[in-house]
């Protein structure tokens, strides 16, 4: 969580965005993020992001479900309360399959969604800075972080050359905070307000 300075460029078309991302990376600017209204395939690779390991997590949750179901049912039928049900075996594997399968799916799905929300910091009440309201509508918003080495004007003209429109500079909280979307309540603004009061 830190307040940072950014240069924001809007793109109307993903076909313009891709070469621009490539140029930003070769120019060596610090690409904070690109916000898009829908998943643009290949953009993660163009930005040099690594593959997500969410599937691996899902697999681990899945086998946790499998072992939980199998071991619990066998424990109940063999150890805790062995019951003679119509002379059937105490370890009826075929009869255990449906519940084992369901729990595998349940654990994998619930675990993955929770991991997804944790990794992306998604939760009711969580708020993040929106660089442009069009980023969930029709704009592809490229955000470049300004470090002490970068010159804001230079980045702006660079973005303009790459085809961006509506280029502006913003000071914003880079992380998330608990807040409401009907209020301007960025943590650093709150601090300024309390200092002024």
């Amino acid at each position, binding site marked *: 969580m830190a307040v940072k300075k950014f240069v924001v460029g809007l793109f109307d078309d993903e076909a313009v965005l891709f070469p621009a991302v490539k140029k930003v990376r070769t120019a060596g600017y610090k690409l904070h993020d690109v916000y898009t209204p829908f*998943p643009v395939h290949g953009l993660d690779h163009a930005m040099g992001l690594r593959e*997500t390991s969410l599937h691996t997590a899902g697999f681990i949750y899945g086998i946790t479900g499998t072992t939980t179901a199998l071991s619990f049912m066998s424990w109940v039928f063999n150890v805790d309360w062995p019951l003679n049900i119509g002379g059937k075996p105490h370890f009826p594997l075929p009869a255990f399959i449906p*519940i084992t399968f369901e729990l595998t*799916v349940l654990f994998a799905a619930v675990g993955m969604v929770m991991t997804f929300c944790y990794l992306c910091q*998604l939760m009711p*009440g969580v*708020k993040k800075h929106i660089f442009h309201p069009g980023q969930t509508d029709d704009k592809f918003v490229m955000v470049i972080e300004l470090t002490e080495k970068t010159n804001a004007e230079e980045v702006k003209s660079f973005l303009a050359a790459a085809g961006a429109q509506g280029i502006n500079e913003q000071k914003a909280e880079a992380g998330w905070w608990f807040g409401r979307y*009907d209020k301007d309540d960025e943590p650093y603004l709150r601090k300024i307000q309390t200092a002024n009061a």
Partner: protein
Amino acid sequence: MHLKYESTLREPLVDGVKDYHQVTEDIISPIEGKPGTLWYVGFFISLTLLGFGAFSVFWQIYFGVGVWNLNKTIGWGWDITNFVWWVGIGHAGTLISAILLLFRQGWRTGVNRAAEAMTIFAVMCAGQFPIIHMGRVWMAFFILPYPNTRGPVWVNFNSPLLWDVFAISTYFTVSLLFWYSGLLPDFASVRDRAKTKLRKLLYGVAAFGWTGSTKHWQRHEALSLVLAGLATPLVLSVHTIVSFDFATSVIPGWHTTIFPPYFVAGAIFSGFAMVQTLLIITRKILHLEEYITLGHMEAMNKVIVLTGSVVGCAYLTELFMAWYGANPYEFATFFKYRAAGPLGWSYWIMMTCNVITPQVFWFRKMRRSVAVTFVMSIIVNIGMWFERFVIICTSLYRDYLPSSWAYYRPSWPEVGFYMGTFGLFFTCYFLFAKYFPVIALAEIKSILKTSGENYKEKMVVYEEEPAEKFAHDVAHAH
């Protein structure tokens, strides 16, 4: 030129001249406006039905299951019929969103959101029946394997009825997660263009703080794909397990190995019919004809005629096996008391609605007719209700002992309970249609430039030139 190319031979999935903003506008503006009179009328009818259902359930709980017309011979009647019917309807949503995602069917994007919502509401309705039919509903938690003071005496993990508990609850949870994870980005779209404070606040909470970051989209895609992979066998397993409730018993008419595929096909059949019923009304009222096109309806009608024919094959196979199996009791069930006898009329309603009438969909003109599709979608669901009624009641009402033979017709609390689930279903659906993006916004945008009508028209130029020239131009584009 767009990054992806799709032949103009394929019908566009989005009609009209659209850009990304127009898509947002078309889909979100119904949420922002006031609902029309029709919405209020429909919503209050649904609420009334729900109230009547609640009263019927209260009546049954207060006086006991005796107020239902079930008896010693017919232990399962409308309750389980309705349960299986609703669960079946709940199969189309996950099928559309999961299986068609894996098959890369682009047309899924126009209908998946509403179909998934329908799934969730239908499973909610279905769940009422097994719980209420227990009689002493306050003991319903006995079906959960929790450590108790009665031994602990655990539930019987060998029992298909317990498998059902796990299957239905897992199915509901996974469908809900799948649906809601897809809704997050669309809620964020509503939030970011909201004008009123209340809408900003509520959709802000509902969107969980979604921003549209590329990394988040990457994870979102991975999540959708794995959830689709998990939901595909899940959707097949759920109705398979429901069919086990019958197939693992020894009642003639139930004890057949054909049940799992037969039930799954029937579920998809009825589910798609319900999707058609709802979407034909939704697209008309919300003016979404350009997103839910005749092409979408045709694709679903193809699924209906396929699964309807699978179900028809299953009916004939059952009849054949009843004769070929040489079991006199099974023969009697099918030929004396199901296709004939006092409840024989229900069998012929089922046959007509499920096997004969859907054959109109072999004709393209019929598949693309809104009126025919609407009527057919209702006929199919009547037929599928009777299928479950036939399977349950005609197998039970003539058992091994002629002295216990009986007839069955529902009492008013049974009918009221069924009406009440309609109330619940449509109340939820009306709220969904008003307050949720009815079409998966982000997904439509991701296919817009390959499958939108105005973008496809631009491809005509490329279609006319030889393939070699096109490949050359793409390779040396920059």
